[in-house]
C-alpha cells in the first residue's frame, strides 16, 4: 500500500479498517500500546475503587459499610486486578509496546499480529475476571494467592478467576516473546547491545522472566482447576496432596512476577534521570547487568513467602540468604541513579519529581523487604499489615510512580499535546503525601500485630486505620488532579510542536510527535550511546528565551 504513510501520524493513519476496528484490529505497536493504556487504566480505576472501599470499611472496627464476605471478595478482586490486569501489563505492554521499537530504531515489533492477539487475550481474561463478580455464587474470596485448601473448598466463583489468571498469563508471555525477538533481530544498524537505552535492557530482562516463570503459575492454576473439577488429588490434603507444594509452585512464579513489575519501572527511571540531569548515566553497564542479575536471582528466592509453613531448616536458611542477596542489584541501581544527579544540569519538571519519588518510596519498600527477609522477624510480621505496607510501597510507590513518571515523560511524544506543568507538580505532592499517610501506618500496625486480610480489628488499632483511610482520600485527590490534567491537555486544541521538550538523546525524541506508522522516514544508523550529551550550551540558551 502507500509508503507516504510516513509524515502521517499513527493516530489519523488510514489503514484497512475504519472507526473502532482501525484500533482493535490494528497491528501497529503504537496503537496497541494505547489500547493497553486505555484498558489497564480502566481496570486500574476499578481496582482503586475497591481499595478505596476497603479503606472505608476499615475506618472503624466492626461492620461499617459492608459485610465480611464482601470485604473478602473485595481484597481478592483488588489483588487480582491490580497484579494481573494493571501492574504487570502496566509498563511493558503500554510503554514497552509504544516505545521499544522506536528506541531501537525499528518499524514495529517482530510479530505484530501476535502482539494484537496478546491484547485480545488480555481483554478476554479481564472480562472473565469481571464477569465472575456477577455470576451467582459471588466473586472469589480466596485472596489473590488462591491458597489450597481454601480455594478448593470455597463455594464462590473461584473457577472464572483462576481461568482468567491463566489466560492473562499467556497474554503476558506473548508480549515477552515478542520483545525478545524484536530486541535480538530488529535493532537498527549500529545499535549494539550496549548502545540500547536502559529501558530496553530492563524490558529484555523482564521478558525473560515473563517467558520462563509465567508458565509455572499457568499450570499450577490449571491444576487447581482440575482439582476443583475432578478432584485429581494433586493438592487436596484430603486425598494426600500437599498444600505446601501448591504454595511453592505459586511463588515460583509470583516472586519473579514482582520483578516483572519493578524492572520496567527501574528502566523508566534510568531513562528519565540522565535526561533531566542532562548528562551521561553513571555506570551504564552496571545498571544494564543488574537488571539481568535481578531476573536471575529473582527466580531463587520464592520461598521467602513461606517461612512460617514449616519448611526444612535448610530451605529456610538458603531462601533467607538468597533473599538478602537479591537486594544487591537493586542497591547498585539506586546508587547509580543518585550518582547520575552529581554535577548534572538538573531541570526539575514533573517526570523528574516522579522519578525521585520512585527512588524514595521504592527504597522504603525495599528496606522493609529486607526486614521481612530476616527469619526471626518474619515469624512475627508475616501476614500482618506490615507486608501489605511493604508491597504497596514497592508496587505502587515503586511501579505505580514509575508509570506516572513514564506518562509525564512521554505524554507529549505520544499525543502531541502538553499538560500543565504546575498542576502536574501539585498532583505529585498530593500523591506523595497521601501515599505515605495511607501506607505508613500499616507498617506500625503490622509490627504491633495487626494481621492482614482482616475485615474487623481490635480497638487498639483504630487510630492507625483512621489515619490510613484519610490518607487514601488525599491520594485519590492527587490521582484526580493528575488525570484531569491529562484529560485537559488531550482536549485542548493547541498541538504541541516541540519535538524534544526535555532535551533527550534517545531516538524517540528525534522523530515527530505522534510518530508515523513506520516511526522513521528511513531507519537511522546509530553511531553513539543513548546518553552521550555532547555539550549543553544550547539547553541553557533554550531555558532563557
Amino acid at each position, binding site marked *: 500500500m502507500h509508503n507516504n504513510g510516513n509524515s502521517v501520524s499513527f493516530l489519523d493513519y488510514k489503514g484497512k479498517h475504519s472507526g473502532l476496528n482501525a484500533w482493535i484490529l490494528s497491528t501497529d505497536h503504537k496503537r496497541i500500546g494505547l489500547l493497553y493504556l486505555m484498558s489497564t487504566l480502566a481496570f486500574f480505576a476499578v481496582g482503586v475503587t475497591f481499595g478505596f472501599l476497603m479503606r472505608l470499611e476499615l475506618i472503624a472496627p466492626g461492620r461499617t459499610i459492608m459485610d465480611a464476605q464482601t470485604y473478602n471478595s473485595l481484597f481478592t478482586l483488588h489483588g487480582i486486578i491490580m497484579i494481573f490486569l494493571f501492574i504487570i501489563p502496566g509498563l511493558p505492554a503500554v510503554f514497552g509496546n509504544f516505545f521499544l521499537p522506536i528506541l531501537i530504531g525499528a518499524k514495529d515489533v517482530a510479530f505484530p499480529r501476535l502482539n494484537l492477539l496478546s491484547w485480545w487475550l488480555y481483554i478476554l481474561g479481564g472480562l472473565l475476571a469481571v464477569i465472575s463478580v456477577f455470576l451467582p455464587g459471588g466473586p472469589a474470596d480466596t485472596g489473590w494467592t488462591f491458597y489450597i485448601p481454601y480455594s478448593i473448598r470455597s463455594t464462590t466463583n473461584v473457577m472464572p478467576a483462576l481461568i482468567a489468571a491463566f489466560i492473562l498469563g499467556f497474554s503476558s508471555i506473548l508480549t515477552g516473546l515478542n520483545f525478545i525477538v524484536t530486541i535480538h533481530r530488529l535493532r537498527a544498524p549500529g545499535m549494539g547491545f550496549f548502545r540500547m537505552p536502559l529501558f530496553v535492557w530492563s524490558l529484555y530482562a523482564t521478558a525473560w522472566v515473563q517467558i520462563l516463570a509465567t508458565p509455572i503459575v499457568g499450570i499450577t492454576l490449571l491444576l487447581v482447576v482440575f482439582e476443583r473439577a475432578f478432584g485429581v488429588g494433586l493438592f487436596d490434603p484430603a486425598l494426600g496432596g500437599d498444600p*505446601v507444594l501448591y504454595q511453592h509452585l505459586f511463588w515460583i512464579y509470583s516472586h519473579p512476577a514482582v520483578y516483572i513489575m519493578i524492572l520496567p519501572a527501574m528502566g523508566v527511571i534510568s531513562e528519565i534521570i540522565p535526561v533531566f540531569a542532562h548528562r551521561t548515566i553513571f555506570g551504564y553497564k552496571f545498571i544494564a547487568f543488574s537488571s539481568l542479575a535481578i531476573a536471575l536471582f529473582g527466580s531463587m528466592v520464592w*520461598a521467602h513467602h513461606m517461612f512460617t509453613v514449616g519448611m526444612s531448616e535448610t530451605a529456610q536458611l538458603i531462601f533467607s540468604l538468597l533473599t538478602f542477596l537479591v537486594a544487591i542489584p537493586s542497591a547498585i541501581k539506586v546508587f547509580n541513579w543518585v550518582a547520575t544527579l552529581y554535577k548534572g544540569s538538573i531541570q526539575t519538571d514533573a517526570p523528574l519529581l516522579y522519578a525521585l519519588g520512585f527512588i524514595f518510596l521504592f527504597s522504603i519498600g525495599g528496606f522493609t523487604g529486607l526486614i521481612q527477609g530476616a527469619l526471626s522477624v518474619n515469624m512475627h510480621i508475616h501476614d500482618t499489615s506490615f507486608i501489605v505496607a511493604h508491597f504497596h510501597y514497592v508496587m505502587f510507590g515503586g511501579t505505580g510512580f514509575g508509570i506516572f513518571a513514564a506518562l509525564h515523560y512521554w505524554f507529549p511524544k505520544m499525543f502531541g499535546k502538553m499538560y500543565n506543568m504546575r498542576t502536574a507538580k501539585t498532583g505529585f505532592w498530593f500523591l506523595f503525601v497521601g501515599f505515605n499517610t495511607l501506607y505508613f501506618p500499616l507498617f506500625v500496625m503490622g509490627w504491633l500485630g495487626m494481621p492482614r486480610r482482616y475485615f474487623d480489628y481490635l480497638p487498639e488499632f483504630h487510630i492507625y486505620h483512621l489515619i490510613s483511610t484519610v490518607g487514601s482520600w488525599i491520594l485519590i485527590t492527587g490521582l484526580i488532579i493528575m488525570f484531569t490534567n491529562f484529560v485537559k491537555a488531550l482536549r485542548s486544541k493547541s498541538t504541541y510542536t516541540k519535538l524534544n521538550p526535555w532535551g533527550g538523546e534517545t531516538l524517540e525524541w528525534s522523530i515527530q510527535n505522534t510518530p508515523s506508522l513506520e516511526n522513521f522516514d528511513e531507519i537511522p544508523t546509530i553511531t553513539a550511546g543513548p546518553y552521550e550529551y555532547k555539550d549543553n550550551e544550547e539547553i541553557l540558551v533554550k531555558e532563557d528565551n
Partner: protein
Amino acid sequence: MNSEHLESNVEHKPTYGIYILVWLVLMTLTGVTVAVAGINFGNLTIATALTIACIKSYLVLTFFMHLKTETATFKIFVAVAVLFLLISISLLFSDYSFL
C-alpha cells in the same frame, strides 16, 4: 543484521542419512530403557532411566531440531531455559529432601 539472516538461510546440503541414523540410535535406546527397567538397581533405576532419557532428548534437540546448525544465540537460549528448570527443582528439594 540482514547479513546475519542471509547466512543463516543458506545451510549446508540436507541429507536423509544422518536423521535415519539418529532414529535408529533413539530406537535402540528405547529398547535399552525398557530392558533395563526390568532389573532393579535400587535407587539407580530412576537415575539410569533419566540418563537415557536425557541422551535421547539431546539427540532430538541437536539433530531433529537442528540446534547443531543454529547460531550460538539458540544454544544459549536453550541453556537458559534448562538452567531455570534445574534451579527450580534443586531449590524445591531443599525443602523436601532435607526434612
